[in-house]
């Protein structure tokens, strides 16, 4: 049904896809995996000839035996959506904000003369029929993605291309959308080409899997086999990034024996206007301990971290650091911030694009007026974050570094003040799978060498399994369960923890 023969795509002199050949039979599901920049989305767009004009395409894209590149505009328009449709990444921007979603679903049906009704399609994707009158901004992320799916099915195509369909979604919602797609593909005997950076998502939905790296196809086979016995090192790196919860081989550290408490949070409450974001949280982090704070987006975990840092004022409750209550005055908070450092999710935006690595790392020294040789201190911190030799990096600007290197700079900027606790907010979530492991290993090494404690805020239970000593599960502003990793993740006592664990796609 779909056949790519020696597909090569250039943007100017840059080759983004090189000699990719793939085929997909009706009813077959194929996952295309790869990191950012691997060319996987370009492949998806080439199926319906949707690449920008600056793209130069060589090779064949055969849709039902017909070359897409050779089609007239009229023929191409007739084929688009009727033969193959696309579920785009980021439904928020892929739906027109000023049209009602029902109208947007009906548009291709009218255009291609397909019989059928919007309400039936909405029922198929398990949305109430009155949502047809809603505008995109009135729907949640999961609902928008369902609308995208309904829209993709509107003209009864035999092939659906899904480009990162669940990337922006929360784990629990992601699981619902994936289940829906799996069911619809099976019921309607659709061909599915799903593109994702997340192997576990593909493993959940696709029989076959193909792995791309640097524009080339490096491995293809049955999903089970590829993941169990990766032949290409890149595939192996991707698989390793998704640890199996409960597998001792994926535990990278042994839980430390209960240490002395370093940070204690007592009955902390944070209100945003009338909503209570954090609702009476008690949490303790011991010296040198790694505590994972897990939960869905909106559970209040990020607000909790910001409040601990003093970036937002609590409505009530106390934060006690090293036996002393942290005051609310700016002087007290400033002193506290020398001891506790924040590492943010997206390193590319956590660094000022105009500041060199040296400036970024030395920022803390300047703010606190630390005496001494800043150059030596910065060099030491940068090397501790494993950017060696430091001299190679000090004058670089953030955009000249890779994501992993940027995150190391952020960590070096924290280390330079010799803190005792790191608050790491999704420190690896925006990194490519192959880099993720290195940063996780760095955090563990810092703990071993410096006795640095961490509060790891994450939605990723696999990450918690990998490195945390203890896990705290947060739901609707409350900590519903906390305890040693093995206990919480393997024998969860709270329903919500169980629901979270069920939602994790297993490789």
């Amino acid at each position, binding site marked *: 049904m779909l056949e790519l023969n020696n597909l090569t795509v250039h943007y100017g002199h840059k080759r983004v896809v090189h000699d990719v050949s793939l085929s997909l039979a009706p009813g077959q599901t194929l996952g295309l995996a790869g990191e950012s920049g691997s060319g996987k989305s370009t492949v998806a767009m080439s199926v319906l000839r949707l690449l920008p004009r600056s793209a130069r395409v060589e090779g064949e894209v055969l849709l039902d035996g017909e070359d897409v590149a050779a089609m007239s505009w009229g023929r*191409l328009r007739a084929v688009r959506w009727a033969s193959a449709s696309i579920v785009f990444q*980021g439904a928020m921007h892929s739906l027109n904000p*000023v049209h009602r979603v029902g109208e947007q679903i009906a*548009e291709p049906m009218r255009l291609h003369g397909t019989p059928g009704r919007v309400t039936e399609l909405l029922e198929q994707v398990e949305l109430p029929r009155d949502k047809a009158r809603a505008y995109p901004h009135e729907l949640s992320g999961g609902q928008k993605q369902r609308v995208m799916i309904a829209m993709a099915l509107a003209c009864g195509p035999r092939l659906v291309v899904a480009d990162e369909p669940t990337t922006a979604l929360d784990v629990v919602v992601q699981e619902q959308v994936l289940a829906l797609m799996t069911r619809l593909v099976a019921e309607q005997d659709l061909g599915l080409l799903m593109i994702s950076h997340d192997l576990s998502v593909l493993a959940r939905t696709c029989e076959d899997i193909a792995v791309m790296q640097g524009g080339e196809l490096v491995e293809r086979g049955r999903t089970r086999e590829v993941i169990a016995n990766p032949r290409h090192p890149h595939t192996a790196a991707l698989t390793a990034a998704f640890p199996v919860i409960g597998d001792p081989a994926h535990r990278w550290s042994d839980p430390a024996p209960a240490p002395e408490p370093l940070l204690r949070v007592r009955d902390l409450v944070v209100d945003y206007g009338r909503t209570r974001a954090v609702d009476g949280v008690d949490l303790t982090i011991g010296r040198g301990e790694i505590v994972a704070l897990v939960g869905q987006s909106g559970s209040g975990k990020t607000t909790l971290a910001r409040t601990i840092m003093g970036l937002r004022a609590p409505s009530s409750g106390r934060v006690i650091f090293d036996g002393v209550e942290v005051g609310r005055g700016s002087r007290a908070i400033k002193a506290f911030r020398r001891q506790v450092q924040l590492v943010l999710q997206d390193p590319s935006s956590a660094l000022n694009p105009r500041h060199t690595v040296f400036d970024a790392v030395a920022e803390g020294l300047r703010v606190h007026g630390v005496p001494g040789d800043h150059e030596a201190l910065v060099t030491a911190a940068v090397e501790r974050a494993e950017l060696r030799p430091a001299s190679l990096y000090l004058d670089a600007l953030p955009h000249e570094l890779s994501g992993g290197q940027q995150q190391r700079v952020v960590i070096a900027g924290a280390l330079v003040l010799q803190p005792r606790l790191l608050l790491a907010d999704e420190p690896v979530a925006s990194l490519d799978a192959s880099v993720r492991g290195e940063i996780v290993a760095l955090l563990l090494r810092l703990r071993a060498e410096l006795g640095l404690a961490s509060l790891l805020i994450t939605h990723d239970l696999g990450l918690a399994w990998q490195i945390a000593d203890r896990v705290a599960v947060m739901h609707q502003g409350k900590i519903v369960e906390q305890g040693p990793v093995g206990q919480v993740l393997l024998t969860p006592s709270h329903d919500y923890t169980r629901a979270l664990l069920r939602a994790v796609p297993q490789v």
Partner: protein
Amino acid sequence: MRLAGRFGGAALSLLMVAVLGFFLFRVVPGDPVVSMTRGRPVTAEMQAALRAQFGLDRPLHEQFWTYLTSLLRGDLGTSFTFRRPVAEVILDRVGPTVLLVGTATLIAVLLGLWLGVRAAWRRDSAFDRVTTGVSLTLWAVPTFWLGMLLMMVTGDLFPSRGMRDTDTAPDLLSQALDVGHHLVLPSLTLVAVVCAEYALVMRSSLLEEMHAPYLTTARAKGLRDDLVRRRHAVPNAVLPAITLVFLRFGLVVAGAITTETVFSWPGLGLLFHDALTGPDYFLLQGLLVVTAGAVVVMNLLADLLHGVLDPRVGVV
């Protein structure tokens, strides 16, 4: 909730306009009576009498209170040059200005938005280059100079002074034709300058939208390019453009002042010119309050219109 906020904001703005109108002409250095009578043979007694007549001899807070209460009654004081109530003088001149500004704005909006959409859709085409080039040049042209130039170039083709001739037949049709004939040059001047601005605004607004992912969705559905543009891109791009058009209503007002001065069009703009050459402070103050108030109201209307047109904003 939002609606109440908008009205509240507009009311506050109107109050600020009133306060500004008062203090600009009282607190600023110089005695208004001295500067209004400058260059005329006036004795100190006459000046004192004038001061008493305008209430300028009383304490400031008392003056302000009198000013505010009479403003609420629609009393803007008495014009020094016309020897008539300012409100009456202004009311007489509203019609011609509304006619001129209304005609020009309507044409400029339609033409400007159309040019902007076309230029953006065919970015870097000859059409785009010419439109952008001409618009940028027109943006640099002082309105009054363009008016003088048009007047000189067209010669006797169009009347260049006033709004109607005295010897036109009194029937409605002849009068309308005469006014229309007089309207050509002033409105052309105003359209040229304002339309350039609108075209540039619309062009950049649509260019902003051109990379929106939902356009890819529309193309993937099999829509023709012109449908992608008409149904998906333009409705999104027009909203910010229309808001900006209304926001820059002050620009049209400014253009109207010089255009009316050049063509002696008997509207508020010409009145402005007369008031400042006097100078007639009470008339100027009244004009400031009235035009600024009108702009605030236009702005409120734009806001409400945006709420109706854009589902993301919502009316309530």
